[in-house]
């Protein structure tokens, strides 16, 4: 090959080439078994991002939804929010597979540093606040078993750093996927609550009973949306798609991966709502931080069920801490043009691993400082995510429709229409929330209409 002399090959390239060689070999196979093997090789970013977003504050939000509103409107509503997540995350798969560049990198290079830094600030603040809440969830979950806060965060950090030890994207992805599978623990917990299946079916078909139109409802709506669609997901899935080495030939499997992830995550989210629905009318869930859901569930589903619920919270926090800190490290590497891959050996990826580790350690450290008003962070984190989504989605929309970089992978009109609808919905939800805070009288009047 004439061009070979000009090519610089790195360890990152070699590791990725080994993964891609297995995919190429699997493509040669025929039949269901070969296709299943190929799917196994190509899944990862979609499931990780969706189960990663079922994080500490998200599961607390679903638990509060069940305890405050019972079974009704919010069951189909949460499924709808996962539909919204599916629409936008599918775009990141196409963008990553077509350009082989991360989201932050593309915004910087196509739109310049001015808009790039705005996006980075949104991502950085959102990620750090969310990371803090992950460690709060881990601390609360392990606290159920009597583990002191300092030990809880050390356990979480140990798991996070263990996943990085191999310096291989593939191994990291499989270890994190295995941890993420525990998110489904909320499904057996829901079954232990002996839900009224007739009421569940009725809620899905009729979206009833409807919640009252008031500030609490708007806050939970925003919180549940923020539990499903957030800016870090866009950055993470695109960067992970690139790091995994997916190409335009793999987009179909990337879609399946994302649909699978959305389905699993929706099942776990619904599980959390159904599990806490028996608390409806029995406890106040106004303060997510103070609501000791696992403790409150003991009389209803037993100590074992409540312990599973607490473990689910711990898992949700740990997996999200891994994916969110990785998302921050990817973005930092992309904008500073430093090496950024989970395939990098420690010596070549010092800044990547340093950012990843520092973010996690700083967030964990804040959680163990006594007396800090952490409830403040828990209250705002999901709402901030919803508010930051429309600006992030506009850049995603512009990039995925950019013919110069998306050669051969056009964005279908119906997909663009759905993405635009998601932006409008999220903005409307944000405005509704703003009105409920700034003009409560006007909001109360609207509720009486």
């Amino acid at each position, binding site marked *: 090959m004439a061009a070979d002399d000009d090519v610089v090959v790195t*360890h990152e*390239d*070699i590791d990725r080439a080994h993964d891609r060689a297995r995919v190429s070999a699997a493509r040669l196979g025929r039949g269901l078994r070969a296709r299943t093997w190929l799917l196994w090789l190509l899944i990862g970013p979609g499931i990780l991002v969706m189960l990663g977003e079922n994080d500490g504050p998200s599961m607390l939000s679903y638990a509060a939804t069940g305890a405050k509103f019972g079974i009704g409107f919010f069951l189909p509503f949460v499924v709808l929010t996962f539909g919204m997540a599916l629409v936008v995350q599918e775009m990141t798969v196409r963008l990553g597979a077509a350009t*082989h560049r991360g989201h932050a990198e593309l915004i910087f290079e196509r739109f310049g540093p001015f808009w790039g830094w705005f996006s980075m600030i949104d991502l950085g603040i959102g990620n750090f606040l969310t990371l803090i809440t992950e460690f709060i969830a881990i601390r609360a979950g392990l606290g159920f078993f009597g583990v002191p806060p300092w030990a809880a965060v050390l356990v979480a950090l140990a798991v996070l750093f263990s996943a990085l030890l191999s310096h291989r994207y593939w191994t990291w992805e499989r270890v994190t996927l295995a941890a993420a599978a525990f998110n489904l623990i909320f499904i057996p917990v829901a079954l232990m609550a002996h839900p009224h299946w007739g009421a569940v079916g009725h809620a899905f078909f009729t979206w009833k009973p409807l919640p009252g139109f008031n500030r609490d409802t708007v806050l939970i709506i925003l919180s549940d949306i923020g539990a499903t669609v957030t800016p870090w997901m866009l950055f993470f899935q695109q960067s992970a798609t690139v790091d995994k080495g997916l*190409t335009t030939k793999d987009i179909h499997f990337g879609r399946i991966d994302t649909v699978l992830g959305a389905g699993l995550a929706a099942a776990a989210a619904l599980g959390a709502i159904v599990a806490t629905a028996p608390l409806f009318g029995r406890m106040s869930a106004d303060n997510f931080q103070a609501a000791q859901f696992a403790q409150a569930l003991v009389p209803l589903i037993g100590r074992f069920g409540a312990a599973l619920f607490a473990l689910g919270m711990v898992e949700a926090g740990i997996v999200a801490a891994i994916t969110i800190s990785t998302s921050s490290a990817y973005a930092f590497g992309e904008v500073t043009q430093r090496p950024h891959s989970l395939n990098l050996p420690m010596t070549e990826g010092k800044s990547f691993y340093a950012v990843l580790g520092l973010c996690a350690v700083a967030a964990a450290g804040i959680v163990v400082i006594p007396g800090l008003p952490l409830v403040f962070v828990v209250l705002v984190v999901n709402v901030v995510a919803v508010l930051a989504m*429309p600006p992030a989605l*506009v850049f995603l929309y512009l990039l995925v429709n950019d013919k110069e970089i998306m050669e051969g992978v056009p964005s279908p009109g119906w997909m663009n229409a759905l993405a635009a609808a998601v932006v409008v919905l999220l903005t409307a939800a944000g405005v509704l929330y703003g009105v409920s*805070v700034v003009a409560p009288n006007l909001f109360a009047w609207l509720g009486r209409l």
Partner: protein
Amino acid sequence: MSEHEHVSLADTSLVLSTLEHDQLVSAKREPIPRRRLRGWQLALVWTLRVYLVFMLAVVFWQAWTAVR
């Protein structure tokens, strides 16, 4: 040419036969040309930026009041 002396010829060959050119780390160092935002696009991103800043102020004020 390889960046590290211990990258074997077999590895180099595997990389070149398996990865698309744009996937190579060296290719990713090439910048992507800048594009200009059109009038309506610029108006949209600025509007959403103002919306975000205003709404964040609302959120932090509400949360601060609730905590106090």
